[in-house]
């Protein structure tokens, strides 16, 4: 019989994993998969503050991400430097600052996540926010694909590319903020990049690709929690190892 804590962990991990996989398919199309990593890292000051003052780490992480993404977005508009360069500047600075005051005993939790202290309310919040993120991503999905093919073409079709990109980046912030609950700040690139790549291997059109990301992400979350329970290894790494396993399978059975 599944105990309540495990059920909560399963619910939360599957929903966050699924939406991260879905968003990841867009990030892959914009060649931004790796950005999930630095974005995860730059949440560290937010996590550190949350741990010191005892509030939810996702709130600290999300606040930090929104701040960072707005800063990156403004820099990009002003300098036209590639987003990845700007992200590198902002995330390394954040990590450096975080280590000035991150409590030593909390380092592991901050880096690879911890789902052992889940409560019903925090699970409901995470699941609701995952659903919200899903709706936001679904609304902008085609427009982002369009602008990934050609920004000029999208603009010529009256798509407000700047606005759509900002919404997209906020969705990324939300999903990464949720993701650090499971996998910590070190491993967030995995939850957005691996399921998308798995889906890319197995899909032959855009719909399959998008929904494949959801399935691969959700399934990795479920398998991860089962492994966490059976072998008592941390949930974050377990989810990612499961996801990598699914990816290897997709390489063997790829259709494209």
């Amino acid at each position, binding site marked *: 019989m599944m105990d309540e804590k495990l059920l909560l962990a399963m619910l939360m991990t599957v929903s966050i994993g699924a939406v991260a996989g879905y968003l990841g398919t867009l990030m892959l199309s914009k060649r931004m998969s790796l950005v999930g990593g630095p974005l995860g890292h730059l949440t560290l000051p937010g996590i550190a503050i949350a741990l010191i003052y005892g509030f939810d780490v996702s709130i600290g992480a999300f606040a930090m991400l929104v701040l960072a993404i707005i800063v990156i977005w403004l820099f990009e508009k002003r300098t036209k430097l590639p987003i990845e360069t700007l992200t590198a500047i902002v995330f390394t600075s954040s990590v450096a600052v975080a280590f000035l005051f991150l409590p030593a005993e909390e380092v592991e939790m901050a880096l690879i996540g911890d789902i052992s202290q889940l409560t019903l309310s925090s699970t409901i919040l995470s699941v609701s926010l995952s659903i919200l993120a899903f709706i936001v991503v679904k609304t902008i999905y085609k427009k982002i694909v369009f602008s990934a*093919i050609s920004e000029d073409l999208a603009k010529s079709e009256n798509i407000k590319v700047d606005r759509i990109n900002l919404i997209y980046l906020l969705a990324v912030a939300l999903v990464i903020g949720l993701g650090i609950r499971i996998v910590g700040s070190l491993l967030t690139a995995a939850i957005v990049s691996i399921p998308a790549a798995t889906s890319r291997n197995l899909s032959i*059109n855009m719909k399959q690709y998008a929904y494949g990301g959801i399935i691969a992400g959700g399934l990795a979350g479920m398998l991860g929690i089962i492994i966490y329970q059976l072998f008592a290894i941390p949930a974050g790494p377990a989810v990612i190892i499961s996801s990598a396993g699914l990816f290897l399978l997709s390489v063997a059975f790829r259709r494209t």
Partner: protein
Amino acid sequence: MENNQLALSVKNLTVELNKQKIIEDLSFEIKKGETLVVLGPDGAGKTTLLRALLGIIPYSGEIVWSVKNTSYLPPNELMQRKEILPLTVGDFYSLKEITKNRVLESLGSVGLEQNLFKKRIAHLSTGQFQRLSIAWALVDKPDTLLFDEPTSGIDIGGTETIYSLLHDFWVKYKLTIILVTHDLSIVWEHADNVLCLNKKGLCYGVPEKALTTENLRELYGVGVKYYHHKR
């Protein structure tokens, strides 16, 4: 000049990007149903001109469209991106919210098989993809088509096909076409007017009058040796 026949009027257009003047004080007009070929060497501001006409970059001066429905095809950008997503021909049309019947009709209009609907764009040949781009650009029945280097990367046979297709659509739908190219041979067969652009407008008018040897030398430098007048 019958002004109600104008599709586009551009006056004193200046485009500055990163504090550099890309286009300076350019003026020209296009009548409805006319084909204007914008000619110039690489880096002359041709693509920038199209982007300004589309209103997707800031500019000073005046751009007045008298037609509403314009369609744009950027240069080869689509080709570079096609491998990333498992995008099918159908998916490509779905970005424009087009019904399947109209998609099939559109494919037929450029001589593409209907069974390409489910085919991945990455698996199309260059020629098929170029036909697809034209069909895709015209599926909304635009009255004006802005076309940037439509035949770059295509062999001579393919180039002929693209232009004869464009010509057919031009005749059938009375399209206004703005065509950017560095290929002089296009001008003689298809242009009503030609605009030579190299930051400034160096010549403008019917090809026979605008493309004097002096103008071409000024446009391209001294390298234009193999220039032939067809008629």
